[in-house]
C-alpha cells in the first residue's frame, strides 16, 4: 500500500517550543499541531489564490439580492 504520509524535518529547538506550546491544549502531539497550523496556512493561501474570483463577487452579491427579491425578503 502506498504510504500516505511523509517525514518533514524541523529544527529541534522549534520542536521543543512546540511541545511546550501544546501542553494542556487539545493537540495530542507536536505533529498534530504542525499539521493543524500548516493546513490553516495552506487554506489561507488557497483563499488568496481564489481572491480574484471572490472579489469578482459583485455579481455574487447581485445574485444574492436577486434571490432575496424572488423569495420576497426584499
Amino acid at each position, binding site marked *: 500500500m502506498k504510504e500516505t504520509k511523509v517525514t518533514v524535518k524541523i529544527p529541534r529547538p522549534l520542536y521543543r517550543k512546540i511541545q511546550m506550546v501544546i501542553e494542556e491544549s*487539545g*493537540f*495530542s502531539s507536536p505533529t498534530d499541531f504542525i499539521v*493543524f497550523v500548516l493546513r490553516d496556512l495552506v*487554506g489561507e493561501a488557497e483563499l488568496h489564490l481564489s481572491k480574484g474570483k471572490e472579489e469578482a463577487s459583485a455579481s455574487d452579491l447581485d445574485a444574492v439580492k436577486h434571490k432575496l427579491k424572488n423569495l420576497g*425578503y*426584499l
Partner: protein
Amino acid sequence: MIAPHGGRLINRIVTGAERDRLIDAASSMPKIRLNARETADVDMIGNGAMSPLQGFMNQADYNAVLDQKRLASGLPWAIPIVLATKDGDDASKYEEGKDVALEDENGQLTAILHLESKWQADKTREAKAVLLTDEDAHPGVQYLNSIGDWYLGGRISVVNRIAYDKFNQYRLDPVDTRVLFDKKGWKTVVAFQTRNPIHRAHEYLTKCALEICDGLLIHPLVGETKSDDIPADTRVKCYEALMEKYYPADRVVMSVYPQAMRYAGPREAILHAIVRKNYGVTHFIVGRDHAGVGSYYGTYDAQNIFNEYEDGEMDITPLMFEHSFFCKETGGMASSKTSASDKEMRVFLSGTKVREMLTNGEVPPAEFTRPEVAKILIEAMQQKVEA
C-alpha cells in the same frame, strides 16, 4: 456587521472546473451514504454556517471539543461535528490522505471529503462529555449507538447542494441573511429558535428582545428531531400565522435552520449561538432548558454555560429569559423576574396538559396561545391521531 466565528465566512462550495474534476474522480472513490444529521452538517459547513469549520472535525478538534468545549485552535465550540462510518462498514477502505465521496440520503453525490484523520470513536466518552449521560433513553445516545465505530475527519468540497423538498422559500445561507440585514439597515439582530410550537410566552420573549434590537430573525430548526416533537411543518405554519397578524412586518423575518437536533442542552445552546453569529445575528434568545430533553439538564444550565467563556469570546450576546406567562393581576405578559403576582394569577399550562387539550380539540386559553396558533395545532394533532 458582526464577524463570523473565527473571522471569516467559510465557503466550501466548489464550482467550475474544480467541481467537474471532483465529480469525475468521485466514481472511483470509496463512498459513504450520509444520514440526515450529516447531510444537514455538510450543507451548513459548505455554506459557512459552521465557520470556522471547513469540514468534519479531525481528532485534535474532536478531543478539544470534548475536553475543553473549544476547537484545538482555542475558539469556543461545544458540539462535535463528525462523520461516522456506517454500521457494518469496513473502515479500512477509507485511507487518510485520500478522498471519499459523500452521498446524501437519496444516494446523490453531494460532497468530497478530503480525509485527513480517522479514529475509533469512544461513544461512551463522547456521550458523557457532550450529553452528560450515557443512558440509552437519551435520543443523542440512541443516535451514537446507531452509527459506525470510526470517525472520519477532514475538509469537504461541496459539489452539489442538497436538494430539499420543503421550506425552499425560507432557505437562506449566511451570506444571504448578512446581505438581507444590511439591506434592511439592521445593525443588531436577535435570533429565536424553538423546536416547540410557539405560544404567547415565546412571542413575549421575542418582543422583549426586539425592543432592544433592530430586527428579529425567527429561525426554526427544521432538521431531524425526535418523532414525538411537533413536526417542523406545523411549527412553521404557526410562525406564519403569528407573523401575519402579531408582528411588525418590517422588523421580522423568518428563515429555516437546517441542522438536526442533538438534544445536548447547554452545549447545544453554545452551538446554536455560534452558528447564528455566522448568519449575521448579534443576539440570541436562550430560554429555559434550551435544547434539553427529559430531565437530563438543569433549567438554567443552557444559560449558565455561557459564563464558562471569557467576555467577548463568543461575540454574540445571549439574551437569557426566565419563565414567562400571562399575569391576570396586571393583564399582561410577565416573567418570574418581573411579576409580583402569586402563582394562581399566572396562566401557565404544562406541555402535557396542552397536548391533551389540543388532541381533544380544546382551544387553550387565549392568554396562553393565540387562537390562530391553537387552530393549526389542533388540526395537526387530530391528523396525527387519525394517522
